[in-house]
């Protein structure tokens, strides 16, 4: 097992000017489950493939443990791409399906059997080892595919959107399995996904990328509670954070009919480029429904309520003079988590206020977090 280090690692595709991955610096601890996440084209898969040796590294270097693997052949890097080939061989037993790569590598029979048995124990496949794959369920077959990677005992597991071709139910199931399995094995794992929910639920830490640049890396909690810029704020969380750019007057941001007081340090940190504005973000659950006229409250007109049983989310329009360009994710509405037992009708206007300390403030010019 080993650490993984991207040291100013850069990939520029031939014929392009902008790097697909630009000076990536990332240190992954031994045994850590790190998720690379971002929208399509952000460089997450390219970063993983650089680590796998499939993409050239045009600048910087990549280390596995203390070993510089920048110019090492993929097969000599001691990594395993999990789920790369999951076709199971029908005439071979489950044990042989798991161990055949070791047989190719010339590993002694007794050792193969031992490693396969160990992996089977972890994967709950012990009683099936001498059966044929057709006796297995879909989920068990998938675990055999994982077993193939486990028996090789690599330093690092790499997974590139492994769940993307599964249906929704199997996806959630497998997600939990992979995460708990990784923790039991303690093998350093780098996992790529475009799905922030997958990232939040699986990773010890998450690295968010955009346009080839690392935006932020941290635990799911850190990413959620203190996003370091507007992009991360909008990307992490479902439903998405409400984000808008508003005028600053007398040390407060004007949101709808409300003034949201800003820290003095935030106000003094504003530059000319900000043009007297700040970007304010607040999550759907950071809003309290309050009585009309409550200081710091603003009005939202109900467009739609999405009821999820335990929760309900109201999608509405901000009322008042300063409506800014408020949006949440793909929707240009404001989203409020409300009590599912007390749901307003379409067209009804409610009053909401941001819970103290739960507003995120970013520079209107740079998008970076101010407070």
């Amino acid at each position, binding site marked *: 097992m080993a650490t993984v280090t991207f040291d100013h690692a850069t990939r520029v*595709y*031939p*014929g392009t000017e902008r790097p697909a991955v630009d000076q990536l610096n990332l240190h992954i601890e031994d045994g850590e489950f790190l998720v690379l996440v971002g929208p399509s084209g952000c460089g997450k898969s390219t970063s993983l493939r650089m680590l*796998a*040796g*499939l*993409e*050239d590294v045009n600048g910087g270097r990549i280390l596995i443990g203390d070993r510089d693997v920048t110019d090492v*052949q*993929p*097969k000599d890097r001691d990594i395993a791409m999990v789920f*790369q*080939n*999951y*076709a*199971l*061989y*029908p*005439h*071979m*037993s489950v044990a*042989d399906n798991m161990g*055949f*790569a070791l*047989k*190719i590598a010339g590993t002694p029979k007794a050792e193969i059997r031992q490693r396969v048995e160990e992996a089977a124990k972890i994967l709950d496949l012990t009683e099936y080892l001498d059966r*044929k*794959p*057709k006796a297995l369920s*879909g989920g068990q*077959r*998938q675990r055999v*595919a994982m077993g193939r990677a486990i028996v090789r005992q690599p330093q690092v597991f790499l997974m590139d959107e492994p769940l*993307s*071709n*599964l*249906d929704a139910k*199997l996806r959630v199931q497998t997600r939990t399995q992979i995460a708990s399995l990784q923790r039991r094995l303690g093998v350093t794992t780098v996992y790529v996904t475009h799905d922030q929910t997958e990232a939040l639920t699986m990773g010890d830490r998450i690295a968010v990328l955009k346009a080839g640049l690392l935006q932020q890396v941290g635990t799911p909690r850190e990413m959620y509670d203190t996003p370091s810029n507007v992009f991360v704020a909008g990307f992490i969380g479902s439903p998405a954070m409400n984000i808008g750019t508003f005028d600053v007057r007398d040390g407060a941001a004007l949101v709808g009919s409300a003034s949201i007081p800003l820290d003095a340090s935030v106000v003094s940190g504003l530059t000319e480029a900000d043009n007297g504005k700040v970007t304010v973000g607040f999550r759907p659950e950071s809003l309290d429904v309050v009585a009309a006229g409550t200081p710091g409250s603003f009005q939202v007109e109900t467009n739609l309520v999405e009821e999820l049983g335990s929760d309900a989310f109201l999608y509405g329009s901000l009322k008042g003079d300063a409506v800014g360009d408020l949006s949440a994710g793909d929707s240009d509405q404001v989203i409020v988590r409300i009590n599912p037992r007390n749901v307003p009708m379409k067209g009804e206007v409610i009053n909401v206020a941001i819970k103290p300390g739960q507003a995120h403030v970013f520079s209107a010019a740079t998008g970076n977090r101010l407070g």
Partner: protein
Amino acid sequence: METLQITAATPESALLDLPWRVPLEEWPAEVLAALPRGISRHIVRFVKLGKRVLAVKETRDHYAFREYELLRRLQKLEVPCVIPLAVVTGRLDDDGEPLEAAIITEHLSFSLPYRAIFSQALRPDTATRLIDALAVLLVRLHLAGFYWGDVSLSNTLFRRDADRFAAYLVDAETGDLHRELTPGQRAYDLDLARTNIIGELFDLEAGELLDEEVDALAIGDALLSRYDELWNALTQVESFSADERWRVDARIRRLNDLGFDVGELAIVTDIDGTTVEIQPKVVDAGHHSRRLLRLTGLDVQDNQARRLLNDLDAWRAHTDRLSDSEQLVAHDWLLHSFEPTIAAVPRELRKKLEPAQLFHEILDHRWFLSQREGRDVPMPEAAVSYVEQVLRHRPDEAMLSSDDDADHDLLLG
């Protein structure tokens, strides 16, 4: 509400008649064609549609469209692959529950999955010839910038090509087209190919479908050496002194012999003009098939073309027409040798093999007869003998029937 959508370059209303409201796994036998199936992680079925056979694979929308696009681009690059026909999305079952999307490709007629080839117990070097074909395919894909990501015998179909095989890419779902592949991508593809091939042969071994003399590991390794050999022949920089200009021609001829045309050759001379460096920049497979097509209009695979061209040359010498134009002689050869030979095969047996493959086998058979009888056996006579002694006993390969091994499509995902 009906949401079914069929995306196709050439829309075919007949596709609408297929039972899209039923999961592919449960499609009724009357729409299915009995064909051997490879090992796939998805559900794949062959269906009859009019006179054609199509392969239908269930997968998620995004992947279906992606693979469809990739196959179309590969087709434009003239890489041997299955022809994509359509993507079907928006499928609902009778309860209104969504079903997976499907990608439809045309079944490659006369093609053989490797399991079918092995189960026919052909000559002992069959495995080697399959590997040769796969190495050629892999080199061609890599030259075109295609990273396969899951090279295996299961993801390939084979067609007879004279005394060899020609390989076709069947499954592109893990692939990617790049401007140029990195050495790492090529190395990884090769390493995975080796692992998968050996795994597949181990599986045949476990099912007692493989001759005991076949050494799975050696075959896997053979792919690597065949690939390297061909890759180097096609891409290596060669340098020599300026007075050895003949080496340029020699290089081109060597590539022609391997079945490639040189579209562009970089020639670099150093400042004082004493050494020359050459490197093929653009190479196109199909040297022989292009030449035969130009001369006769016959569109066949490269080794078949090579065989036919050899016969054409022999015929030209034999009929004493070396001074006539090649085009003219080719036309007469087609009229007086090729066509009568094929016509000598009874119509109902003709469809067992492609015409060019038939001609090749009759040529082989004639050689065998001539040796045995110590005389020059003419083609029509050889054709009659071939039909009685060989062809009647051969399975029909236009659509090889299934060996009905349900294990063949173990599924995941």
